[in-house]
């Protein structure tokens, strides 16, 4: 005859243990309801295979805790990482462009280049009506100085933003290195845990790793491959491995890479940082350049590089870097160069008054009856030779002169060193030479307004600015404003869209993996009742034994 008495107690005990495990698991889920990246666990129960009694009856041997499953969907986790990367990039772009757009305000307030340009031309128009007026001359010089100030302030602000972006690149790379090192460490733990305890035994480590992977995706784009041993391999788009098994490669930032011995300067002077990996750190340095690959991806780092700009090893100037900020700074620099070349050329009278002499003879003059002493209205702070195409000190710089100074590295940019050549209103050359016949002593009359008028007419003159010919300075500036506006509007839209996408991805992921307190508490009630039922069974078994003993005794 079968001994069902022992089965009662054994089965009740297995039930108690199983419900305890359920309750413990529920308590763990509840405790981690707000833990970032936590995926809820499920206790999988299975009935024990029962032994067949003499009568061929199989009652069953109770319940086993078979396994604990971590509820996570690989596809949803991937979608979450993708949207996190997009949001990381969009947020960074929007943040910087919000600050950039303030440099090009459109409310008519003081402080923008456009406003200063308009006031500059207007001051010359006013002067042309009364060229001898000291007050109006002072207004012109003040307007010129305001223009110089707004240009240099705008340029320096862009340079500071580039510098900040570069600093953040360095910080982000350090953060990425820390994350990849940690991921590699978790790979190792997951592999060893799951090798001994089976799948599901490293649920906590997997949660931590998934969280790190998501945070990493917010910074940099990578491809992930899940291996059968539980580890993941991370690599950049060009195949460069960031993490492989328990090994991570530490990226470096450097302004002096082995592949570029003469890195180009940045807008603020020092070269931009390259993101590299040193293949041969033991025996000198052998860098490979990863900057462009990372720039083309998502994440905050890619956005920072896109904003800051990425220089090529062949670059020689700060304006050749490919990026939003260098591009804008380059356009501001084009305006500056136009002031130094086109504007100065008109200011000194347009043509050489006496081509027979070696030195350039300006054909404009001031109230003192003298021509401009320097090469025009605008100048720049530089102690060397500024104008190489004339033998004398009087002349206006052509574009080739400025290019020569930039290409030799003597001058990094003209926007931050731009000045007005003088402050004395009497020195403003509003007149043109009115002498006639063969070149003789020039005559500049105080009432002659032809040079002032010519300067005012520059407002509607078409020039070549940067790569665009046949455009006025005002229209060129308006193009810059429009470009900035479009960039910011696109960034704002991308930020909104990516935020919505991320929220949707998070919600989908949470729907599957997050803890629902309502669900856990409901289940807890069920587990509690089941536990009570199993405990009751033990009491019943005890009563049965007592009855039997009572009968015997």
């Amino acid at each position: 005859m079968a001994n069902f008495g022992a089965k009662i107690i054994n089965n009740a005990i297995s039930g108690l243990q199983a419900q305890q495990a359920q309750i413990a698991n529920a308590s763990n889920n509840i405790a981690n309801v707000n833990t970032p990246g936590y995926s809820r666990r499920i206790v999988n129960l299975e009935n024990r295979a029962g032994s067949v009694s003499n009568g061929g009856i199989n009652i069953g041997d109770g319940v086993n805790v078979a396994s604990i499953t971590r509820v996570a969907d690989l596809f949803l986790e991937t979608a979450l990482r993708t949207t996190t990367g997009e949001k990381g990039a969009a947020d960074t772009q929007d943040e910087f462009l919000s600050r950039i757009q303030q440099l090009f305000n459109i409310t008519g307030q003081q402080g923008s280049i456009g406003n200063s340009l308009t006031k500059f031309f207007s001051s010359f128009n006013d002067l042309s009506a009364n060229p001898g007026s000291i007050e109006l001359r002072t207004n012109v010089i003040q307007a010129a100085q305001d223009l110089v100030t707004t240009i240099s302030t705008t340029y320096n602000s862009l340079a500071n933003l580039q510098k900040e972006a570069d600093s953040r690149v360095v910080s982000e790379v350090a953060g990425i290195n820390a994350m990849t090192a940690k991921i590699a460490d978790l790979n190792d733990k997951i592999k060893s845990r799951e090798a001994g305890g089976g799948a599901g035994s490293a649920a906590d480590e997997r949660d931590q790793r998934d969280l790190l992977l998501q945070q990493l995706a917010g910074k940099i784009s990578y491809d992930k491959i899940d291996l059968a041993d539980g580890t993941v391999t991370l690599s950049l788009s060009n195949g460069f491995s960031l993490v492989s098994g328990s090994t991570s490669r530490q990226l470096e930032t450097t302004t002096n890479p082995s592949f570029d011995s003469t890195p180009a300067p940045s807008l603020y002077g020092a070269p931009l940082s390259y993101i590299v990996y040193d293949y041969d750190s033991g025996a000198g340095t052998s860098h490979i350049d990863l900057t462009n690959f990372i720039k083309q991806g998502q994440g905050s780092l890619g956005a920072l590089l896109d904003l800051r700009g990425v220089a090529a090893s062949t670059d020689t100037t700060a304006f050749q870097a490919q990026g939003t900020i260098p591009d804008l700074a380059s356009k501001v620099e084009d305006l500056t160069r136009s002031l130094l070349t086109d504007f100065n050329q008109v200011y000194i009278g347009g043509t050489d008054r006496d081509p027979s002499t070696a030195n350039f003879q300006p054909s404009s003059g001031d109230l003192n009856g003298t021509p401009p002493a320097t090469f025009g209205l605008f100048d720049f702070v530089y102690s060397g030779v500024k104008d190489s195409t004339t033998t004398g000190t009087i002349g206006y710089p052509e574009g080739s002169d400025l290019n020569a100074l930039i290409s030799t590295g003597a001058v990094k940019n003209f926007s931050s060193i731009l000045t007005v050549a003088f402050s004395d209103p009497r020195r403003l050359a509003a007149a043109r030479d009115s002498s006639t016949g063969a070149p003789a002593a020039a005559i500049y009359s105080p009432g002659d307004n032809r040079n002032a008028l010519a300067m005012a007419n520059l407002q509607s003159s078409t020039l070549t600015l940067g790569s665009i010919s046949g455009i006025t300075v005002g229209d060129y500036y308006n193009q810059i404003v429009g470009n900035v506006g479009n960039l910011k509007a696109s960034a704002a839209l991308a930020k909104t869209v990516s935020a919505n996408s991320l929220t949707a991805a998070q919600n989908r992921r949470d729907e599957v993996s997050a803890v629902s307190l309502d669900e856990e508490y409901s289940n807890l009630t069920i587990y509690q009742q089941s536990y009570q039922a199993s405990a009751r069974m033990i009491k019943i078994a005890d009563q049965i034994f007592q009855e039997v003993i009572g009968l015997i005794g």
Partner: protein
Amino acid sequence: MTRITQSQLGRMSVESIFNARDQFNKYSNEVSSGLKVSQPGDSRFSGTINQYRDLLTRIEGHETRINSVKSVLAFQDNVANQLNDLIVRAQEIAEQNASETVGAETRAQAAKEIWEIRDHIVQLANSKYQDKYIYGGADDDDMPFDASSYTTTPAITPAGPESVRYAYDNTTTEPANALSRTINLTDDFTMTITSPGNNLFGGALTALERLGRALAGYTTDTTTNTGVPYVLPTDRDLQTRNIKDAMDSLETNRQTYVMPERISLGAKLKRVDTAEALLDLTKSDAKSGLASMQEADVDVSATNLSLAQNGLNASYAVSAKILQLSILNFL
């Protein structure tokens, strides 16, 4: 079965509050600044907005210059009218004294009035506007008509007004006196506001001096600036011819320079008025364009602000409700 977790509820609550607050801030800024586009990123037409702003700033400068030019032209018009009246008066005097019946003494008396008219015209020719000579071309710091002399043989003693002549500055040695001053009234419209006065006044002054000297009893050679006294009564016919020649010269100058100058000034004033009207139209168009692109409709913004505020309050209330609900309250 769809699972709704606490993290989803919390996230949705926070995001709805943030979104409602963004809308509230947006319309609050619109109402306070009056602008729906205050940064380039607020609109894809920020370049166009900047163009309108630039245009309105330029128009401000144009308006100031137009007002200034109108004053100058009005002044010049007044001068031209006075010049014309003075020449006409001189012609009347000449007409009266060209008769054969007028004696030498009467003519000599008439000469005195001619000298007064001449001096008045010199004053007009050397007029200043805002402390600048307006008939000296580009040389507006220097008096354009200076005194010189006629040489009479024998010399006139004591020297009187018949020995004085006024001539425009030498444009060979002072070429700025030959230049006109042109300014930009608007982006498309320039105007010459001051011109050399040698044509307008020079011929009239020379004719007046010839007339005065003839009435006073002297010939005048304007090529050499010399002359001799008439021998009367032998040279009486010569004197009468000289008076008539001077009179004709005055009329030629009046018809050739003074009348066209008056017509020209009238036309300029009309053109300035036209430019001003077109400028007003341009300004109105630009303001209208700018308003439609950049300025907020206060009524619409205020309504949206109110709606946004309601939305924000609703978000707060709903979030509070959702976050308070828990099965724990019932277990």
